[in-house]
């Protein structure tokens, strides 16, 4: 549905230049919800705005539904107004001089053949989809943040666009509302069947909402996969560590089989997944997920490495412990009913094949 080839974009200000997109290629199947995930400043908004035609890349091409809307090489640049997209901006960009209804109805005036009564019906339908139908006549500035976000969504969907672009739509909401809206948003997007690109910098949001997650770093897409695959088989240390805040543990390869290796580390021998073949003896970094670590009384695991708990943090459903093992400190995530406290001596057991090891970067 969306095919992006080798997109490059450099921002040029008077004193500085910034290479914001560095050869991005990406394809999104029809009807899928793809999430662009990455730390802030990595170029997600720039990519989204390029798809929308609000930025002009220096190289590359973009095809939507078989039609080339942008190609630097062929000199094609279809203006935003004719790309047939819906977009929710990070600021929502609700027009304050119009009512809720007028905001939502705006795209119909230019995009759609439906006019008059049926247009009114379509607008109310979309407002109902986001549960704002009872506020149709209210001036737009009198909406709360969550309502504005939903109105922006209704406006983006009203003209049945080919593609829906969402730029961190949940980031301005408070934590509680954000969790509710996560599922709500997915419901709305699925029910309208529109191909969607969703931008976020939050791992949980990306993993819980999308069909595909594309992880971005410094203007590149480093990996794109279904959430489960991404979680289990990250292709780089960056992806693994960005998805779950993890421990980076140095080690050396003891032996390796297909897609798997045993690694010598300060925490003992750990069975890890590997993304690329590794030779015995080569140095690696293990991205060790806190939830793969369990802490036992030393007597129960005589083989395991022993450490001392330095601090604990109670999180309600879990307890996080910082454990010192020799020169390093490991973060472990334990069930909430744990009774361990700082100063306890524990054995560290790591579940096999849950973590991934990558060649150490020199």
């Amino acid at each position: 549905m969306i095919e992006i080839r080798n997109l490059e974009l450099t921002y040029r200000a008077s004193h500085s230049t910034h290479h914001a997109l560095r050869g991005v290629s990406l394809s999104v199947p029809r009807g899928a919800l793809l999430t662009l995930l990455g730390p802030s400043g990595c170029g997600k908004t720039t990519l989204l705005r390029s798809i929308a035609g609000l930025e002009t890349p220096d190289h590359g091409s973009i095809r939507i539904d078989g039609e080339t809307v942008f190609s630097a090489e062929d000199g094609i640049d279809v203006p935003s107004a004719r790309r047939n997209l819906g977009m929710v901006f990070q600021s929502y960009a609700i027009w304050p001089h119009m009512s809720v209804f007028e905001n939502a109805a705006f795209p119909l005036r230019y995009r759609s053949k439906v006019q008059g009564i049926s247009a009114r019906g379509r607008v109310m339908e979309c407002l109902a989809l986001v549960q704002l139908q009872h506020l149709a006549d209210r001036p737009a500035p009198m909406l709360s943040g969550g309502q504005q976000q939903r109105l922006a969504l209704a406006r983006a969907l009203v003209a049945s666009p080919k593609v829906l672009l969402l730029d961190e739509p949940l980031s301005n909401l408070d934590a509680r509302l954000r969790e509710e809206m996560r599922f709500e948003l997915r419901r709305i997007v699925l029910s309208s069947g529109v191909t969607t690109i969703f931008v976020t910098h939050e791992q949980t949001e990306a993993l819980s909402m999308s069909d595909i997650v594309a992880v971005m770093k410094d203007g590149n897409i480093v990996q794109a996969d279904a959430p489960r695959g991404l979680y289990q088989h990250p292709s780089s240390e960056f992806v693994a560590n960005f998805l779950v805040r993890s421990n980076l543990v140095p080690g050396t390869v003891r032996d390796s089989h297909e897609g798997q290796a045993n690694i010598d580390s300060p925490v003992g021998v750990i069975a890890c997944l590997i993304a690329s073949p590794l030779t015995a003896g080569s140095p690696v970094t293990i991205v060790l997920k806190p939830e793969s670590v369990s802490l036992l009384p030393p007597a129960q695991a005589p083989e395991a490495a022993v450490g001392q708990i330095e601090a604990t943090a109670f999180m309600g459903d879990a307890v996080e412990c910082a454990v010192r093992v020799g020169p390093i400190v490991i973060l472990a995530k334990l069930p909430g009913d744990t009774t361990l406290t700082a100063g306890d001596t524990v054995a560290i057991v790591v579940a096999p094949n849950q973590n991934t090891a990558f060649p150490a970067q020199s």
Partner: protein
Amino acid sequence: MKIRRRWDGFTTASGIGTAAMSLAILALIGTILLLSVNPDPNSGLSTPTLDNFGRILTDPQAGVMLGNSLIFASVALLVALCFGVPLAWLVECTDLPGKSVISGLMLTSLLIPSFASAAGWLFLLHPRIGLINVAAKTLFSLHDAPFDILSLTGMGWVEGLSRAPIAYLMTATAFRAMDRSLEEAALTAGAPVHGVMLRIILPLMRPALLSCAIYIFMIAFGSFDVPAIIGWGNRTFTFSTYLYLLTNPQDVFPGFGKPAALASLMLAPALLLVWWARRMMSHGHRYAVVSGKAYRPRLIKLGAGRLVGWLFVGNYITLSLVLPLLVLVWASLLPFLQLPSAKAMSFVSLNNFRALPWDLFLTGLQHTAILALLTPPLVLGFSFAFSWIGFRTKLPGRTILDQIAFAPHAIPHIVLAMGLLLMALYVIQPVLPVYGTVGLLLFAFTIGWLSYGTRITNTGLLQLHKELEEAAHISGASTWSTIWRVVLPLMSRGLILAWIYIAILTARELTLSVLLSTPGNVTLPVMIWNMWLSGGLGKASAALVVFLGCMLPLMLIYLLQSRPKASRQKASLPSLSPGISLEAAG
């Protein structure tokens, strides 16, 4: 490989419009410079010489004029600051009651044409006929009149009174933008109020005060109205009136070389000063922290000082509005000026009004009305185009366009008018007979208010979040529709106020039209000045009163529109006043 996005219709039109306007402004400056190095423009171009400059520099009258202008402008600056700055402080930093009334009154005195108040002050303080002088002489049996409005100090006094609202508006904005917590920190640390004033407020305000001072000094230096009304009669010339005299000498055929040289000599320092003031203002803003929070600064409690505060306000309003306007009405009702008495009352009649040349008056009114109707949309249209190119395109050289649009701000109106006159006579006239048409005046006014207009539209566009427009584009709207349905409605409040303000400025403008006017395009202010010169002061006063009456509806609409709306607490005054045009120049 670089690709170029095709420009949409609106942007193309803006590009062409701004380019044409910029060329016109440059051509105008160019014409002045060209003629200044030409010994005799009537016989075509010859090799450039510096003769004209030599003639100006050796002209003793020019030296006197320069001294006059400096004294006049300095006095005016002093008077304007002495009234404007304390008034701004009272309104912004103290708990003085009735602030909206005060700002309304300040706006009113901003709108009153200064040739009206100059006429009023002449009737009050003329050494022979001035009412106050006459009264003082009889009361204290003095031999000489105690006041002389014909002196440079007298003229500076009148100019300063009418420029005080600009000082008020510019410093009020600065007071508002100032980080008041610094001041409060000093007060809580036990510093006395006057200490805070000296050590905290003044240094913080310095960039604002300095650029305000430069701006007012330049306006006063190039001012025409007050020297024309008061100084012309006894041949006390300042820069603008002298330039007018040179361009329009009564006896010989005008030689434009000398005035062009004088104007060129003025251009460089004027452009430099304005550029400096503009830079300073933007620096000032960098460290005057403007917090967007709805934080209400603690106001200084005046206590019994409120009375003093109100006396000060009342004093200013009496001097700038009440006295001169009252005496003007009084003079218009009398055959000759005299102190109010039973005998004087018996002379009161509407004879002056009946004697007005009404058909001429109506012609002038017609021209003025056409100009007041057409100038604002032209100015704002061009201004919007300039801002659009500056902020919504990546056109190379767009910052230069902005500088060009700002240039008319630095050029005294009399110089602008002279440039246009020369251009009309020597460049355009052979192709298109524009000299003496209302169209030429329209063009002059459009250039004259362009820098003010671009400040308004720049601020307006800068305050609009770009995504509001982008959302409309994505929705399928063209650039035209986006501007019509999203941009203009959101900027409308500022635009409407600017529209009315430009209409008022146009209706009362004397300087720009005086050099360009012929019987075919005479405006009301020019007509009134001609009546004034021809000696019938009573009749001229009557004309002035009728003129002010015609302006009244416009002024009322402006005052009503400029009241801050309850829903949006942000007062609208700052973005409107001409003084602020410097301030918004980011």
